[in-house]
């Protein structure tokens, strides 16, 4: 079992990433701290023995995902869980251009909770598709398709949010 100093170190290493992840998923600051505390608490009391490093981090993120999902089921978190729509791919030339002028918060708000989770785990945390599947409870084969759709939708949302910026400049 982890000792106190080990936990403090683990907390220091993971809290920024976890805060961003939970924040991206629920988009509400008031609940982020509660969900984070609950996730760390569950790691300390229920994590299988022998988990360390990246495995323990994956367990933490998986636990946080489950807490957010439970909160969403209770109605404490707003939004859709599963993506229900398929966005078409944006034109090639726009992609990089859009990503340089970003308003990620507003853009992510246009995605479902699971889509936000997928894009953050893939591109924010650099998780493999297998790790994403284990963390979110989605089948590994489905991760690729869902991630693709989530990414395309985020690019579309980024384009939308960059349009007023273009007009101003």
């Amino acid at each position, binding site marked *: 079992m982890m000792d*106190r100093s080990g*936990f*403090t170190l683990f*907390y*220091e290493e993971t*809290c*920024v*990433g976890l*805060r*961003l992840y939970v924040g991206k998923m629920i988009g509400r600051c008031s609940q982020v*701290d509660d969900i984070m*505390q609950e996730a*760390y*608490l569950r790691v*300390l*009391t229920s994590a299988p023995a022998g988990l360390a490093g990246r495995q323990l981090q994956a367990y933490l993120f998986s636990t946080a995902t489950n807490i957010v999902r439970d909160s969403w089921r209770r109605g404490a978190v707003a939004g859709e869980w599963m993506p229900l729509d398929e966005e*078409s*791919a944006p034109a*090639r030339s726009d*992609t*990089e251009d859009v*990503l340089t002028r*970003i308003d*990620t918060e507003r853009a992510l708000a246009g995605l479902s909770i699971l889509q936000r989770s997928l*894009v*953050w785990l*893939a*591109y*924010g945390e*650099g998780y*493999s*598709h297998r790790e994403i599947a284990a963390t979110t409870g989605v089948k590994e084969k489905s991760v*690729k*398709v869902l*991630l*693709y*759709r989530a*990414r395309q939708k*985020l*690019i579309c949302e980024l384009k939308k949010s960059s349009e007023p910026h273009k007009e101003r400049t």
Partner: protein
Amino acid sequence: MKTSICEREEEIVAAVISGQMDRSVSEHIETCESCRAAAGMTRMFQVEKESAGDGVVDVRLADIIWSRAALARREKRKRTRRLGLPAGIVSGVAVAILTALVIRPSDAALSAKGVESLLSLSVPLLAPTVLILLAVSLVSFANRANGSMSGSGGRMHISSNRGNN
């Protein structure tokens, strides 16, 4: 229309995060629209992560969580101790009944050997019950001893400092 991401995406994302972009990765990003989007998105999130990580991490929250976990573990041990003895008695009785059903003596055997036979039959019935009760008592005693040792730590302070953040 393409409905999935490139096979090399994981490799590309890992390269962007680690900053180790070799020639093959760079060339692939040039030619693959999917991976170019993935690389752009990875850079975007990494910049965000870096700027969020500039703030000082409040380790007091880690202490609070650690204390809450210690309290939760202690409560769990208490619950286990409370449930231990009744559960042991119930399982002991259940084992005795099952044993009695399995080695049920015939009426003829009982009448032939009388009280002596009855006493010899009661040993296999009672032995499992006594053994289980003994095991439960030992586990309960060990838990209590362990709990009193680990519970001698400092007092817990359970409050959230969210308002200060």
